[in-house]
Structures are given as structure tokens and as C-alpha cells.
């Protein structure tokens, strides 16, 4: 251990830091020329050239000749010899698209806000165009793309490939997302519920690593749960398991968008929280509440704590039913950290049947807003068989 410690100020540590800088800059921009790299990192062109040469011979980077402003230049991207996979996450108000290689390294990423009640055709068009643009930025073509995973914030009917219940995403009703997207991209497309894919990502790369029985809660505008049971995503008979947000916690509670009364989502979901705060704080987005709460605004803190308590009641039921080893809390609201988790944990403790020592630990997700997009990419990677000979360069 002793000799592995970094020695600050030494040539080696400086070189290491410079390498990291270059890789970070390429990750951020997708691809850059060496001259641009020098500008973006503040390193001298000679250093950039040396490090790029070193990293491309070790297989981490890939260089290709190109031109910038009429001059010859070296376009540097992360290497993606095996091919690329893309994960797309549509949430109610956002779209995130991550381009990753087979080793789960994200080589390019984009996100954009979406309109309320966005429509499938518009958004899938946008995705296709964005994807083409991203492939271009990492110096790859559609041929390098092996598969596409899409995360949708609604339960998917495994048989028809459409959302399992109309009205949850009004603009996507009756659209067989995978088929439609396959026709646009001519690549295999796999679609699943965003909560399932967020759970998959947390299980493989995040806070639930190594926990073969875990639940990932996705708490944002909607509330969902991804169940990992015996190391596999549990989808149920029809593929719609994990509709955690629509468990009834108040028999005569407020009307939910699903048509029932007293669903968790109608009480602790994003729109319900925002409606409750509107009289005091005006029109806000969920993110504003999280930021305000973290800055110490008592009204927002209270709203988040209340949401945590309600979610905790439902989570306790879930724990009694499934006995998971760990509960990972992800989604937009989870950025509030202990403001949400504290009351949630407390409510679980109160209603769970087993003793304290057998209670699952409740932790914040590690992948943040990217979880579902990464999960979608992992889902696509899992579904495709990579034959090395096929794609050798």
C-alpha cells in the first residue's frame, strides 16, 4: 500500500493527473482534435501529443486524421473497438441518452428537457438525430452501433411492446416503441420500464452491487421500483411488476392519474408535492424543491420529509413481502439525501416486521440521474452476443 500512495508534486503524479485531464475532456466533448484538447485542458500541445500517443498505443484512445479550419488535425476519441451501445432514458420531463462501449464506459452523453406530455413520434425522431450526431462526434458510424436500450417511465406490456396501461404516458399510448425505433435505426432495440433499468444499473455498477436481492426505488415525477430478486430483474407474469407508486396507502386519498384513489404517487409523487407547495412558493420544478430544501428552506424540507414518510410506509410493506437485502433510493428527489432518506428509514423501521438487525439498509443511489440511461445501455449490452472475430479491426 505504501508505495502505491501518490506522491504529490512528483513528475509521475503530474503525468497521471494530465492523463486524467485529457481523458475527462474527451469524455465531456465526445471527441476533440489534439489542438482543441490543448485548449480545453490547458496543457501544452507537446504534452497532449505525447499523452495521446501513449494512451492510444495502450488501446484507451483512438485517433483518426481529420481537418479543422482547413488544417490537418488528429481527431481523438475513446476507443470503441467492440462496437457501441446506446441507452436512452425518457422521463416525464427529460430525455437522457448515453453512448457506451461494451465495457460500460460512457463515451458520449446528452440530455435535454422535454415538454410535458411529450409525444412518442417527436421524441423518437429527436433521439435518432441526437444519436447520429453523437456517433459522429466520437468518430463512429451507425455500423458501430450494436444495440439500443430504451427506458420508459411506464410499465411495458411484454406481449404487445406498448405501455401496459393507457393514460400513464398520454403521448406514447399504443406505440410499440421497440418496433418503431427498430424501423428508424435498423438496429435491435430493447425497451423496458425505467425503474427496472435503474435497478439493473445500480445492481451492476452502483449502490446495489453484489446484493442479489435488492430493490431500487425511483422517486421523481413518478414513483417506481425495480426489483432484483436472486440476481435477476423480476418482471412478473406480464412484465409489469414493481408498480410501487400505485400501491394504495390511503384508502380515500386523492385521485391518482391511474384512476384509483390514495396511490403513493398521488400523495408523494412530484406533481402532488408541487401542488402542495404552490400556494406558498409559486410554480416550481421538483429540482427547485430539492435545491431549496438543501439550502435550508423549512417548507421544502417539510414537503420532502413528508414524502419520505409516505414512501417509507409503502416501502415497509414491500420489505415485509420481499425481504430485500438493500433498498436503493434513486430518482430526482433522492438528491435531497438524508432529508428524504431519514424520514423514509424511520417509517420503515416502524412498520417492518423483522427486528432492527434484519432490516434492509436504505441508501442513496450512486448513479444519480444517469441510472436509467446506463441501465438501458447495460440491458442492450446483455442482449447482444459479441463475437470478437466478427468485429475485429
Amino acid at each position, binding site marked *: 500500500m505504501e508505495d502505491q500512495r501518490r506522491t504529490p508534486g512528483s513528475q509521475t503524479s503530474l503525468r497521471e493527473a494530465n492523463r486524467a485531464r485529457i481523458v475527462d475532456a474527451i469524455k465531456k466533448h465526445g471527441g476533440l482534435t489534439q489542438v482543441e484538447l490543448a485548449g480545453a485542458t490547458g496543457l501544452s500541445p507537446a504534452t497532449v501529443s505525447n499523452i495521446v500517443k501513449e494512451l492510444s498505443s495502450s488501446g484507451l484512445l483512438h485517433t483518426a486524421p481529420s481537418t479543422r479550419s482547413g488544417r490537418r488535425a488528429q481527431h481523438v476519441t475513446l476507443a470503441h473497438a467492440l462496437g457501441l451501445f446506446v441507452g436512452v432514458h425518457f422521463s416525464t420531463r427529460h430525455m437522457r441518452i448515453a453512448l457506451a462501449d461494451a465495457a460500460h464506459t460512457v463515451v458520449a452523453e446528452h440530455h435535454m428537457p422535454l*415538454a410535458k406530455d*411529450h409525444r412518442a413520434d417527436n421524441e423518437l425522431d429527436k433521439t435518432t438525430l441526437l444519436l447520429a450526431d453523437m456517433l459522429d462526434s466520437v468518430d463512429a458510424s451507425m455500423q458501430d452501433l450494436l444495440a439500443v436500450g430504451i427506458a420508459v417511465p411506464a410499465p411495458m406490456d411484454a406481449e404487445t411492446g406498448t405501455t401496459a396501461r393507457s393514460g400513464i404516458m398520454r403521448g406514447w399510448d399504443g406505440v410499440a416503441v421497440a418496433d418503431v425505433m427498430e424501423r428508424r435505426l435498423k438496429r435491435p432495440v430493447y425497451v423496458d420500464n425505467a425503474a427496472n433499468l435503474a435497478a439493473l444499473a445500480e445492481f451492476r455498477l452502483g449502490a446495489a452491487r453484489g446484493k442479489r436481492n435488492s430493490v431500487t426505488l425511483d422517486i421523481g415525477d413518478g414513483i417506481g421500483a425495480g426489483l432484483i430478486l436472486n440476481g435477476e430483474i423480476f418482471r412478473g407474469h406480464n412484465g409489469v411488476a414493481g408498480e410501487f407508486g400505485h400501491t394504495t396507502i390511503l384508502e380515500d386519498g386523492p385521485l391518482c392519474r391511474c384512476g384509483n384513489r390514495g396511490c403513493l404517487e398521488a400523495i408523494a409523487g412530484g406533481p402532488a408535492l408541487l401542488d402542495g407547495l404552490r400556494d406558498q412558493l409559486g*410554480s416550481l420544478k421538483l429540482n427547485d424543491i430539492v435545491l431549496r430544501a438543501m439550502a435550508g428552506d423549512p417548507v421544502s424540507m417539510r414537503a420532502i420529509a413528508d414524502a419520505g414518510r409516505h414512501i417509507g410506509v409503502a416501502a415497509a410493506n414491500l420489505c415485509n413481502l420481499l425481504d430485500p437485502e438493500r433498498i436503493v433510493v434513486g430518482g430526482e428527489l433522492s438528491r435531497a439525501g438524508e432529508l428524504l432518506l431519514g424520514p423514509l428509514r424511520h417509517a420503515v423501521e416502524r412498520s417492518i416486521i423483522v427486528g432492527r438487525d434484519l432490516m434492509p439498509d436504505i441508501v442513496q443511489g450512486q448513479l444519480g440521474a444517469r441510472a436509467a440511461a446506463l441501465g438501458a445501455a447495460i440491458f442492450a449490452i446483455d442482449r447482444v452476443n459479441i463475437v470478437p472475430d466478427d468485429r475485429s479491426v
Partner: protein
Amino acid sequence: MTMESAVADTEGATREPVLSLKGVSKGFGAVRALTDINLDIYPGEVVAIVGDNGAGKSTLVKILAGVHPQDSGTIMFDGQVVSIPTPTASRALGIATVFQDLALCDNLDVVSNLFLGREIRNGLSLDEEEMEQRAWSLLRQLSAKIPSVRIAVASLSGGQRQTVAIARSLIGEPSVVILDEPTAALGVAQTAEVLNLVERLRERGLGVLLISHNMADVQAVADRVVVLRLGRNNGDFHVADVSYEEIISAITGATDNVVTRRASAHAGSASAAAAAADASGTGTVESGITEDFRTHETPAPGTEENPQS
């Protein structure tokens, strides 16, 4: 659900608008470009102005930017009545305007463009180092994808140029940023960049006035949508409770506006429908809609008439 969301809700109770227009009118000769426009912008809020061609969007921007002063009406900034006779006055108040053509110098690099006219001096010479550092920190705060600040603006993409123009507007620490058609003529990836940027401005607590034709973009980032039609206010919606179709119907004039509602309030409930149809000049087909409207929103006309309350 009512057709139009309540405009004058409790928002004003706890917060003061940073910029507020009351009864602003502007004419060019015989043309009434704007009549009696009311508009409030709160800090940390994105307000989109939409409307057909000739609705008066650009005139409104020009009044706020100090290009043309208004003929009548008041503009309040931070609770003070102000006049904006020149672009310099607008900028000095803290209103930054990014025009559609961006007004960047193609042959200069990003740093020079950002600090054009506001160069940081170090004695007699320019403090290039300080400017470059401030440029980087600003672009980083906006998560801008600009590879280098020392390349000429001519070699940047449309979205990157928009980013530079927006970043430039932030140099003077404004409290309101006006973006005129920021996503027109941009590809999807660049549009995504600009929309993210608008969200970032919002997070910084700035009031953002967004002029756009693209309803998807407007609905993606705006908190409120203000519809102008033929130089008048024709609706003020919270994005959270309005549908795409309702905004379009306000833009095209298929639904009621301030004038008809005011007329119906004056005329009393018995003759209101007739008066409304009369005042708006709508035919018999629309009068049914107007009638429907009135019954849905009895409190709305009163609040609309006196937005201060």
C-alpha cells in the same frame, strides 16, 4: 379543469416580480404594434412569449432592450418605475438581451467576444489572462461544450455560438435575460444544449424571457407561457396545467382574451355573452365558446383587471 389556468394566483403574495410591465403600448405611425401589454417576470422563472408573426413579440423585446421606448405604460424593475431610453440604460438596469442574430464578431475569438466593450484592463494593456480565466469559469458554470476559448467564433457551431452569446450577456451580472428565438435554425443536439442552458440560467435565479415559435421547446423549459395576439395579451398560462392545444388556440385567437373578458365583466352576467362576442368581433360560432368560458371562470375577469391585487 378550466380551459385557462388561473393567472393571478398566489404567486405575488410571497415574491416580487423582478420585471413588471403595466399597460405598455407602442405604435409606429398608424400601426399599433402593442396595446396595453401586462407582463410580470419573477426571479428564477422562465417566461415564454409566443404568438404568430406580427403579434408584437419583437417590439416587446425591443422596448425592454432599449431600442424603442414605449409610448405609454410603465415598466417596473425591482419595484422601481424605470424608463429604458437606450440599450445602455437597459444593460445598466440588469437586462441582458440576446438577439436572434447574436451580434457576435466572427473574426474574434471567444474571449474577445465575451468581453467586447467591457475588457478588463491591467494598466494600459488588456489583462488577457484574467479574461481567459473568467471566460473559462463562466463557460464551465454553464456546462458549455466549447473546446477552446481561443478559436474564432466563425469556427463554432450554431449551438456553441448561441452559448457564447448567452455567456456574454451574463458578464454584466444581469437579473433578467431575454433570449430572442434562441433555438431557431439549430439542430437537435444544439437545441438540447441551449435548452439545458436556459435551465441553468433559471437555476442561477435569473428571470428569463424566452421568445420562441417552437412549442415543444417552450413547453420543455418555460414555467409560464404568455400569448400575444395582434399586439395584445391573449392568455397567460402555467405550463404545468395547460395543453399544447390550448396554447395554440390562444395564439390563433380561437379562445377568448383579456378584452372580451373585461367586456363581459362590465356588462354583467345577463348580457355578458353578447357583449363578449361583440367586443371580440367573433362570430356566432365562437360566442358559444366564450359563453362556456365565462361560466368556468367567474373570478378570473376581476383578478385580471387589477393584477396588482
